[in-house]
């Protein structure tokens, strides 16, 4: 059994990618860096879908279709997030999360 023909290999890879992305979301203060980390998390989800699709699913087209949907939603999310970052930068002259506190109660 080759290492790249096992489901667990891909699950652990996706898990490591997810943990790295989660650390980025929690630790970084730059809005763009947070967006980059979110993209890593979405990719971890895609790898999981593709791995289950390859090894377990009844039909191999379903996981690929879902991965394509994830990519489309990620593109929409990135466009919206970048426009919000632009608006925040124009208002605050900064892309630091800790300075965007106008909605604090």
């Amino acid at each position, binding site marked *: 059994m080759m290492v*790249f023909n096992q489901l667990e290999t891909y699950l652990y890879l996706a898990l490591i990618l997810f*943990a790295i992305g*989660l*650390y980025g979301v929690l630790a970084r203060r730059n809005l763009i*860096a947070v967006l980059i980390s979110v993209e890593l998390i979405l990719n971890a989800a895609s790898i999981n879908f593709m791995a289950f699709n*390859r090894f377990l699913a009844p*039909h191999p*087209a379903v996981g690929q*279709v879902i991965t394509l949907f994830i990519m489309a939603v990620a593109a929409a999310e990135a466009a919206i997030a*970048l426009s919000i970052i632009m608006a925040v930068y124009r208002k605050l002259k900064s892309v630091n999360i800790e300075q965007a506190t106008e909605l604090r109660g």
Partner: protein
Amino acid sequence: MNWLSSLTTPAGLATGAFVMVVAMTMLGALIAVAARNIFHNVLGLALSLIGVAGLFLYLNSPFVALMEILIYVGAICIAICFAIMLSAPMYLPPPPRHPLKILGALAGAGLVFAFLALLTKKTTWVAAPARSDDWSITTIGHYLLTNYVLIFEVISLLLVVAMLGAIVNARAGRGSS
């Protein structure tokens, strides 16, 4: 020397390429979250996404691998580069980070990692009883326009709304010309 000769067999070559792809993915992800320079972060993200496309190749779907490179590396990374150029100048030093917060983030991510790794280890995965081996792109197209046609249409609507929203959002405060 034994492993070196095993590298020349097809299986050895495939394993070597797989290790390289995995190293690319992980190194890119680490650069994407750990480097202080925001531009290095984007380059690390691009490297990591190319590695993920390689993983998709190993998972039997060259079509999704190509889409990954096209959409993520070609569109999203470039859009992020534009956002970086339009926002805070890079020569300003980033504000120092509190080490306790870094530690907290490490602990949180580590806890989630440990929990999910335990879950993956404990579960026995059962394959579907009847599995088709039809990997062609034609079938993906059929599925997109029959079983998943509603999601397909809703996602195209979502993309239009997202684009309009992004334009309106980014134009706000620019005067009413």
